[in-house]
């Protein structure tokens, strides 16, 4: 299956912003990249639908489909590049004051679909709407928890000053998080979606489709397409069938099996963003047996990572080293890759008194490959006399169940997120998604120090040490980082292999049909 690596091809296209974030580009392969963009046409893009959940409101917790929708109609101040560092969007540039408590963002000359110009007031209105204490469903609210709106202000026709309550070196990264779109001041009725994005809304039917038209006044230069249809399309097989039968040109979130089936299909092109999703098992460190570091290490030594990758993702993943954020800035790349060692695992299990023990392994179909990987891990653990009792759980409730989680192992996956944010969200003891129930005062203190350190070299060193703690005795078994797969029709060009949550993902202003 390793030949899957040489089989990917995608186009290089200079992005209008100057950010050409190519992830895992298979060097040497450039399939007919020379074709120049053609104007016109209608793109039908298929995404997993969300029924009643789907929304035009860009400040509500988004499905991938909604994120694509909002990216077409709206913009954020910043987005994340391929290395999870901020790149300019509506904010052309930014600079902090000395202690990073006030940030000046210079806005681009951009127009809304109704012809109005973007002003600092729109930015302040949008942030206030996101922070609205009366609304509980604004996901960006927790990212911006330290934003001091009362002391933020317009500082000129195209400059906005944002104040934060504590020094925040990462504000431009936080503003790139999901749910941070800039809406026009006075925006209230989500049905009247007016943004600065490359497409303007024509119609939206929840659970079915959205139609948008090219906005010629787009600040990044008009899109190539005339029309964009974002269509809710049930399961993966239906999306694959529709694409293969020529009923659509773009299908989001496809499986490795689909990619394998269509490797030699001239009508279908697979676009793979490498290592986009961290695949893992979370061990609950607050209860037996995983309150014992020996037990945690034993499990990590038992996993046959390559076999998990080969079966659960047809080989389309890179090895995991028990840490999230591989390939991103601050990732501790030099820690030794953990490999399988059944004998050492056995002796660790014996020392922990777990020889022949039975441990629950919770899993769910909530995400691709999870149940498969859980089943395989259970088989691998048998070799050390350990019984992992696989317990499938309802997919709807699964990710909330983990937070209330009982002892044992839980299948878990995490999308692309900057290392710093990931630590704050999942690893410190007060984290909102502390899936491993990790509680280590020394670790917390090290995280806080790293966050407030402004010198970049020192900061990198501190983040390295923090990750070394997790690698050594943390509760995560990260076995792989799987590709994010998109299938397109052969006649669709300019689709970048970008991870979700990054600027080039689901970016339809840069693609064309030929």
């Amino acid at each position, binding site marked *: 299956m390793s030949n899957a690596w040489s089989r990917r091809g995608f186009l290089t296209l200079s992005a209008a912003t100057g950010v050409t974030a190519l992830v895992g580009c298979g060097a040497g392969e450039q399939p007919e990249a020379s074709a120049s963009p053609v104007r016109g046409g209608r793109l039908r893009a298929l995404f997993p639908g969300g029924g*009643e959940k789907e929304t035009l409101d860009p400040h509500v917790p988004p499905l991938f489909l909604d994120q694509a929708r909002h990216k077409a109609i709206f913009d954020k101040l910043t987005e994340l590049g391929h290395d999870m560092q901020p790149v300019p969007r509506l904010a052309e540039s930014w600079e902090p004051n000395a202690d990073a408590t006030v940030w000046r963002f210079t806005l681009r000359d951009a127009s809304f679909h109704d012809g109005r110009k973007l002003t600092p007031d729109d930015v302040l209105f949008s942030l206030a709407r996101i922070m609205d204490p009366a609304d509980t469903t604004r996901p960006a609210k927790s990212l911006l928890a330290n934003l001091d709106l009362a002391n933020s202000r317009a500082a000129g026709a195209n400059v906005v000053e944002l104040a934060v309550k504590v020094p925040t070196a990462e504000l431009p990264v936080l503003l790139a998080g999901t749910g941070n779109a800039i809406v026009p001041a006075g925006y209230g009725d989500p049905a009247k979606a007016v943004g600065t994005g490359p497409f303007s809304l024509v119609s939206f039917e929840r659970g079915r489709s959205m139609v948008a038209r090219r906005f010629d006044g787009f600040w990044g230069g008009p899109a190539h397409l005339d029309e964009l249809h974002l269509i809710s399309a049930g399961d993966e097989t*239906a999306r694959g069938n529709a694409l293969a039968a020529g009923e659509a040109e773009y299908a989001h979130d496809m499986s490795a099996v689909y990619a394998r089936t269509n490797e030699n299909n001239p009508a279908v092109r697979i676009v793979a963003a490498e290592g986009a999703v961290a695949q893992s098992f979370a061990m609950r460190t607050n209860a037996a047996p995983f309150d014992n570091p020996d037990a945690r290490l034993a499990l990590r030594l038992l996993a046959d990572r390559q076999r998990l990758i080969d079966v659960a993702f047809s080989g389309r993943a890179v090895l995991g080293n028990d840490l999230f954020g591989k390939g991103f800035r601050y990732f501790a790349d030099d820690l030794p890759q953990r490999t399988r060692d059944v004998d050492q695992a056995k002796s660790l299990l014996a020392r922990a008194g777990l020889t022949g023990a039975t441990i629950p392994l919770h899993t769910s179909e909530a995400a691709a490959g999870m149940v498969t990987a859980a089943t395989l891990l259970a088989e691998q653990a048998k070799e050390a006399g350990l019984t992992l009792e696989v317990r499938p759980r309802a997919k709807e409730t699964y990710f909330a169940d983990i937070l209330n989680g009982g002892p044992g192992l839980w299948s878990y996956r995490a*999308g692309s997120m900057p290392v710093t944010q990931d630590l704050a969200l999942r690893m410190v003891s007060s984290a909102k998604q502390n899936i491993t129930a990790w509680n280590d005062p020394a670790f917390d203190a090290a995280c806080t120090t790293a966050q407030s350190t402004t010198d970049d070299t020192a900061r990198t060193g501190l983040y390295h040490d923090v990750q070394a703690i997790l690698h050594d005795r943390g509760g995560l078994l990260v076995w792989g980082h799987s590709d994010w797969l998109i299938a397109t029709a052969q006649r669709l060009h300019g689709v970048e292999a970008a991870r979700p949550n990054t600027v080039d993902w689901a970016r339809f202003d840069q693609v064309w049909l030929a």
Partner: protein
Amino acid sequence: MRYAAQRAGIGVLQLGVLLVLVFALSEALPGDAAYVRFGEQATLDDIGALRTRLGLDAPAYERFLSWAGGLFTGDLGASLVSGAPVAETLTRALPVTLVLTVVTLLIVVPLAGVIGTVAGLREGSRLDRALSTLTLSLQSIPDFVLAIALITVFALQLRWLPATAIGADATTLLTAPALLVLPVLVLLARTTCLLGRQVRAGVIGALHSEYVAHARRLGLPRHVILLRHVLPNAVVPAVQELARVGDGLLGGVLVVEAVFAIPGVATEVVDAVQARDVPVVQSLVLLLGAAALLINLAADLAAHRLVPRTETRR
């Protein structure tokens, strides 16, 4: 007439019990609308806050009564997920499913009638046996197996027909009938066979009956016997069978909507159950339950006319 009114009254009562049942079942599901809302982005704080905002902290009976109370003013409530009125969901999803089922029924009834009559009139002939075997076999192939087979052959290999009806609404289905061909074929297979066999049995039963024998003795022309005596009597059991066909059809719609990615009522029900969107589940079940009850009621009335029980007993 009194019997009909009585049955209708019972029907309303049944519907009430059904709703309480479904509500109790939805309550028993793990998690609620707030718990499942955030998916991978869930945090316990957000879940708690949303639960309060949606009023899910209120006791179950209060929530049920407030929804049921709205019914009397024609208000089906609002989705817990989108906040949009349930009526909006219905007007979006119902036409699609109606197009599917009505088109299917419009083909099923005459098709099954012809197949059943032809087979019944030639009882025991080679044609009858061939039709019998064919209908029995087709009727036994699960919808989803048939759907996968049809998509693979006609959409993916031959490329004659669309593989899915992704993003379609009722208008697109009607203006681009090619979209309907495979889904309707799947729905037809089972229903036509069920109904056709019932018509055949009815025709045979009528042909062997006393009054047809009598009509033959009187020397009535063959087509008169067929049209005036055989067919009307064969129709009654077929009408009763329609109730079963209706159930099969709704089950089939669930599978067909899933496989062909058609955004209709069944898809909405599955989505709403997964989102724990109780008002939407309740309203859709109310609708489907009412439809099923009406069909059953019609079948009951037909049976009542056939064997008026009050006269035969005692």
